[in-house]
C-alpha cells in the first residue's frame, strides 16, 4: 500500500505539471486585459506601462516558468519561514501577487478559506447525514411509498439548480418568514452563545442549499449500492445465523454498501475547497468560489491560475485517497 501510494504520488508530479501548463496556456490565450476595468480616462501609454510592470511584455514561456517558480518554490519557502519564524537564504523573495489587489495570492486564499470550509464543508457533512439514511431505507423498503418519496427528493434535489433553490430559500425564509439573514456576514465573530446562534442562522441557508444538492446524488448511490448488496447470498447467510434484522442491515449490508459510497464522497471533497461558486455568490459568502469569480472578472491571471491549479491538485490527491480508501475498506482489493 505504501509503495502504491508513493508511486501514485510520483506519477502525480508530471500530471500536475502538464495541468498547470494547460491552465496557464488557456488563460493566456483567452481574451482579457487586466487594465480593462480601469477608468476610460487612463491614457493608452499608462495602460501599456501598467501591463509591462505586471510582466505581460515577457514571452509566454518565461511568464509560465516564473509563475511555476513562484508557486512551487517561493510560496512554500515563505510559508515555512512564516510558520517557523526562520529565514532561509536571503528571505526576501518576489511573491506571487494578485494583479487586481496587489496582495499575495496565497494570503488572499488563506483569508477566504475559513468561510468556504465552514459553509461548504458543513454542507457535505449534512449531505452525508441526510443521504445515508434515505438510501438505506429506500433500498430496504424498495418501491414502498418511503422509497418513492426518497426518489422524488433526490430527483428534485438533483434537477433543480442551486441558484434557484438559493433564491427560493431567500424568498421563503428571509423575506417572508424572516428567520435567517439573506447575506452571510463574514465579519461576524463568535464570542458568546447569541453570536453562535447567529452564526448558525446565517450558515443554515447556504449550507442546506448545497447539502440538498449533494445529498440527492449520494442517496442515489447509497440506494443502488444497498440494493446490490441486499440480494447477495451473504445476507441470507447472516439471516440464517439468526442475527437481528438490524444487525444484518447495519453490520453486514451497510458496511459493504458503504465501500463505493465512501469513494464517491472522497471524490466530492475537492469541491469543498473549490467552494460553491454560485451558492457563495447568492448568499454573499466571500469564500474561495467568490474569489475565483472576482479573479475571472478582473482578468487577474495569477489568482485564477493559482486557484485553478490548487483545485486540480486536490482532485488528483483525492482520487488517490479514494483509491486508498477503497483498498482499506474492501479486503479483496490489494495494491502493491
Amino acid at each position, binding site marked *: 500500500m505504501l509503495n502504491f501510494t508513493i508511486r501514485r504520488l510520483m506519477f502525480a508530479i508530471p500530471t500536475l505539471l502538464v495541468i498547470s501548463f494547460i491552465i496557464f496556456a488557456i488563460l493566456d490565450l483567452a481574451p482579457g486585459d487586466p487594465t480593462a476595468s480601469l477608468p476610460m480616462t487612463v491614457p493608452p501609454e499608462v495602460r501599456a506601462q501598467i501591463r509591462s510592470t505586471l510582466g505581460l511584455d515577457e514571452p509566454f514561456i518565461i511568464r509560465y516558468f516564473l509563475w511555476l517558480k513562484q508557486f512551487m518554490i517561493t510560496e512554500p519557502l515563505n510559508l515555512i519561514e512564516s510558520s517557523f519564524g526562520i529565514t532561509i537564504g536571503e528571505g526576501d523573495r518576489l511573491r506571487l501577487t494578485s494583479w487586481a489587489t496587489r496582495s499575495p495570492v496565497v494570503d488572499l486564499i488563506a483569508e477566504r478559506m475559513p468561510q468556504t470550509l465552514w459553509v461548504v464543508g458543513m454542507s457535505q457533512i449534512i449531505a452525508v447525514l441526510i443521504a445515508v439514511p434515505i438510501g438505506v431505507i429506500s433500498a430496504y423498503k424498495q418501491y414502498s411509498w418511503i422509497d418513492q418519496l426518497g426518489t422524488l427528493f433526490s430527483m428534485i434535489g438533483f434537477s433543480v439548480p442551486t441558484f434557484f433553490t438559493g433564491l427560493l430559500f431567500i424568498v421563503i425564509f428571509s423575506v417572508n418568514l424572516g428567520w435567517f439573514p439573506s447575506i452571510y456576514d463574514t465579519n461576524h465573530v463568535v464570542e458568546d452563545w447569541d453570536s453562535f446562534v447567529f452564526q448558525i442562522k446565517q450558515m443554515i441557508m447556504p449550507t442546506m442549499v448545497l447539502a440538498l444538492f449533494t445529498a440527492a446524488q449520494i442517496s442515489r448511490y447509497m440506494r443502488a449500492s444497498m440494493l446490490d448488496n441486499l440480494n447477495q447470498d451473504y445476507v441470507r447467510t447472516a439471516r*440464517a445465523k*439468526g442475527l437481528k434484522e438490524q444487525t444484518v442491515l447495519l453490520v453486514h449490508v451497510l458496511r459493504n454498501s458503504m465501500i463505493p459510497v465512501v469513494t464517491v464522497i472522497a471524490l466530492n471533497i475537492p469541491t469543498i475547497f473549490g467552494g460553491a461558486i454560485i451558492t457563495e455568490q447568492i448568499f454573499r459568502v466571500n469564500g474561495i468560489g467568490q474569489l475565483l469569480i472576482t479573479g475571472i472578472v478582473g482578468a487577474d491571471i495569477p489568482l485564477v491560475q493559482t486557484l485553478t491549479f490548487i483545485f486540480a491538485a486536490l482532485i488528483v490527491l483525492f482520487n488517490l485517497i479514494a483509491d486508498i480508501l477503497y483498498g482499506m475498506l474492501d*479486503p479483496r482489493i490489494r495494491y502493491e
Partner: protein
Amino acid sequence: MRDDVEGKPLVEVRNLKMYFPIYKGILRRQVGQVKAVDDVSFTVHEGETLGLVGESGCGKSTCGRAILRLYDPTDGSVILDGTDIASLNTDDLRQMRTDMQMIFQDPQASLNPKMTVERIISEPLIEHRKGMSAKERSDRVGELMDAVGLNRTFANRYPHEFSGGQRQRIGIARALALSPRFIVCDEPIAALDVSIQAQVVNLLEDLQQKMGLTYLFISHDLSMVRHLATRVAVMYLGQIMELAPSGQLYSDPKHPYTKALLSAVPEPDPREESRRDRIILQGDVPSPANPPTGCNFCTRCPVAQPLCHQVSPDWREIEPGRFVSCHFAE
C-alpha cells in the same frame, strides 16, 4: 447407505406452499404468482439424510429455504421438534436458528467479503451464546476449524483468500457453530470441482456420524445423492413426485418422472452404456406461474392418460415408506 435407519421424526413438513407474487404494469399490480413450492409434505427423521433431487428451477432450493424460514412460506407448516417454524414470530425464530442451519450453494457469495473467517464463524456465537467469553469463543472457532479440516492459523484471513473447497469448509464450520441438529445443505457441492466435491461430501458424512446431524441434502447430482442419502425425494415443478428409501428408489423407481430422471444417469461401463434405454422427455418444463391442471407432470409424461390432465394425483403411500404422487404407480 443406511437404509435401515429409522429414527423418530425431527422435521415434519406439511402442505408447504411458497408462492412468489408477480407484479406487472405501471401500478405494479399483482398479476399472478410463481408456485415455486406447491403443497409439499414430507418428514425428515433424526439422524438421516434426506436427499431432495430435481432439475434446475423445480423449487428444491426454495423448498429448503422455506423450511428454514429464510422465506416466509405462503401456507403450510414446518414442525421442528414440536415447534411450528412457519408461524413463529421473528424473535422466537431467531432463537430456533440455533437448531437449524443451512450450508449454501455458492461458497464465495455466501460469505461476507468484509469479515475474517474468525468473525464469520464466531458471529452466531456472539449472538446466541451470550455467556461465552472471548477466549472460549476463539477456542470454539478453533475447534470448528479443526473439525472441518481448516488450519487454525487461517482464522484472520478473508474469504477471498481461500479456494472454493476451503470456502465451503468455512461455510460448514459456520453452520456448525451453534451445534444445530438439522442442516439443510443447499447444493453444497454444485459449485466445486469433482475432486473437491468428494472431499466435502466425505466431510459432511464424517460430521454427521460424529455429531448426529440430520441433513436435508438438496442436489441435482443423482449419483452423489445415491451415495449420501438415506431416503430420496424427487421434485418436479414445485411438487414432490416420489419419496422412497434410497436403495429402492434407484433400483425400482415407481413414478414415470423418476424413471426418466434415473435413465439419464450415465453408466461407467461403456458396454452397459450402449445398451442403456434412455427415456427422453418431450417438451419443456411448464412455467411454475402457470402449471397444468391435473398432474403437474402430465404434459411430459410418457404414460399420461386423460385422467392425468384433469385430476391432480394424491400423495399416497403405496408400500410402507414409499410415497408416490401418480395415479397409476403401484
